[in-house]
């Protein structure tokens, strides 16, 4: 075995989860190799780049140069076109993910991580208490393997995880950067409607007051070939006919329950690969930052000399479950109900809220109203939005 390719920990995938895992494993004194297939870190961006305030607060300090916009309002558009403004408790950022992930990767490298970009892990297997990752640049071995390989979660399948998603548990999406428009740079917008975005929604996240990340996700259950891109193009030509449209990309968002177990022997799953995603709004960056940090720290703790103590690795799942596990499961239960909401129902909700002049509206108030006929789901909504 080539000793130069032997590490304590190999992290597969250089998105937020993988970078955080590598950083924190390195900071805790272990030799780490982070392998990412992208030629350019963070690119292409298949994401609205939105993150709630709490996400950075608990996992990683945010830097000003990563922030495109600070947002404090959400306009939620019903299928009819009427909108409800959410100002209470809605605070976050739209970030520059390429800059953020580049800086975070550099920080990992400065703490000792060996970063190998533009390289795909094509196979991985266990070999006598070690793990091997096969790439075009050689085989990399480790005592502990952290899989952060995104929505495909392909390498996990080599180790017995069944991570393929059923159609109802994926959003299939199209995104674009839209410029030469006039928007409020402190406000996000979401558009609902079974014709506009069946089982999903359209998002507008401001990059400035003249440009935005605009995207659309629909439930895989309702998807037909090319539907997301077709619907996005229709929405853009109807609402922003004179805009300049660049960075048009496709992508998927996992909308299933987080994977159990998160650890098998010396292999850990983090991020989209582990389906650590808020199923109501497709927000995954905060979960990925947290899970990556926890996985990296615990992986480092588990290694002593040549031995990785697999029992210690299981602490990572407990940490995740305690902080975000139930919240994620609640978001899944609510999503399962919401993909069946009809346009008539959503329009009635909007009319009712607007008529009653509910004062400062919050997402919690809105969801409690939407689920008022289903007390079990009301309780889930209450717990989700108060956590």
């Amino acid at each position, binding site marked *: 075995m080539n000793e130069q390719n032997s590490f304590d920990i190999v992290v597969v995938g250089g998105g937020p989860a993988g970078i955080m895992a590598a950083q924190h494993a390195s900071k805790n004194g272990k030799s780490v190799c982070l392998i990412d297939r992208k030629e350019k870190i963070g690119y292409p961006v298949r994401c609205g780049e939105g993150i709630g305030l709490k996400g950075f607060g608990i996992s990683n300090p945010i830097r000003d140069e990563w922030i495109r916009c600070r947002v404090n309002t959400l306009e939620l558009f019903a299928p009819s076109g009427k909108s409800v403004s959410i100002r209470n408790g809605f605070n976050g950022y739209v970030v520059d993910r390429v800059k953020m992930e580049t800086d975070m990767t550099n920080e990992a490298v400065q703490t000792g991580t060996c970063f190998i970009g533009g390289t795909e892990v094509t196979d991985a297997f266990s070999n006598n208490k070690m793990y091997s990752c096969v790439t075009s640049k050689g085989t990399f071995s480790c005592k502990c393997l952290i899989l952060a390989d995104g929505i495909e979660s392909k390498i996990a399948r080599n180790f017995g995880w069944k991570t*393929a998603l059923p*159609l109802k548990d*994926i959003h299939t999406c199209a995104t674009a950067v839209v410029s030469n428009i006039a928007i409020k740079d402190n406000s996000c917008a979401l558009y609902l409607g079974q014709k506009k975005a069946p089982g999903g929604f359209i998002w507008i996240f401001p990059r400035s007051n003249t440009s935005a990340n605009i995207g659309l996700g629909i439930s*895989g259950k309702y998807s037909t070939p090319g539907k*997301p891109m077709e619907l996005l193009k229709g929405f853009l030509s109807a609402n922003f006919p004179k805009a300049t449209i660049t960075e048009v990309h496709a992508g998927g968002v996992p909308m299933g329950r987080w994977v159990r177990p998160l650890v098998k022997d010396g292999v850990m799953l983090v991020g989209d690969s582990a389906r650590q995603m808020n199923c109501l709004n497709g927000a995954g960056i905060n979960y990925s930052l947290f899970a990556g940090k926890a996985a990296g720290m615990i992986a480092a703790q588990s290694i002593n000399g040549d031995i990785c103590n697999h029992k210690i690795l299981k602490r990572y799942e407990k940490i995740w479950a305690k902080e975000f596990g139930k919240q994620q499961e609640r978001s899944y239960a609510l999503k399962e109900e919401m993909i069946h909401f009809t346009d008539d129902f959503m329009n009635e909700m909007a009319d009712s809220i607007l008529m009653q002049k509910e004062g400062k509206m919050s997402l919690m108030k809105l969801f409690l109203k939407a689920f008022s006929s289903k007390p079990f789901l009301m309780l889930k909504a209450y717990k989700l939005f108060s956590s």
Partner: protein
Amino acid sequence: MKIIVASEFCDMCGTCITVCQNNAISMHNGSVFIDQNRCIYCKHCINVCPVAALKIDKQSGE
């Protein structure tokens, strides 16, 4: 019958891989590959592709 990828439309997003129930799809060296021996023709990949890059090749004669 086999499922093929129109690479000129493919954005390499991996959504097809995510829904493949029999691990028949892989992506490397800038292309998507379908293992026809593993494919069970559930067509989930075709339906979720955001850009309609996957389709059935009816002329394959199989």
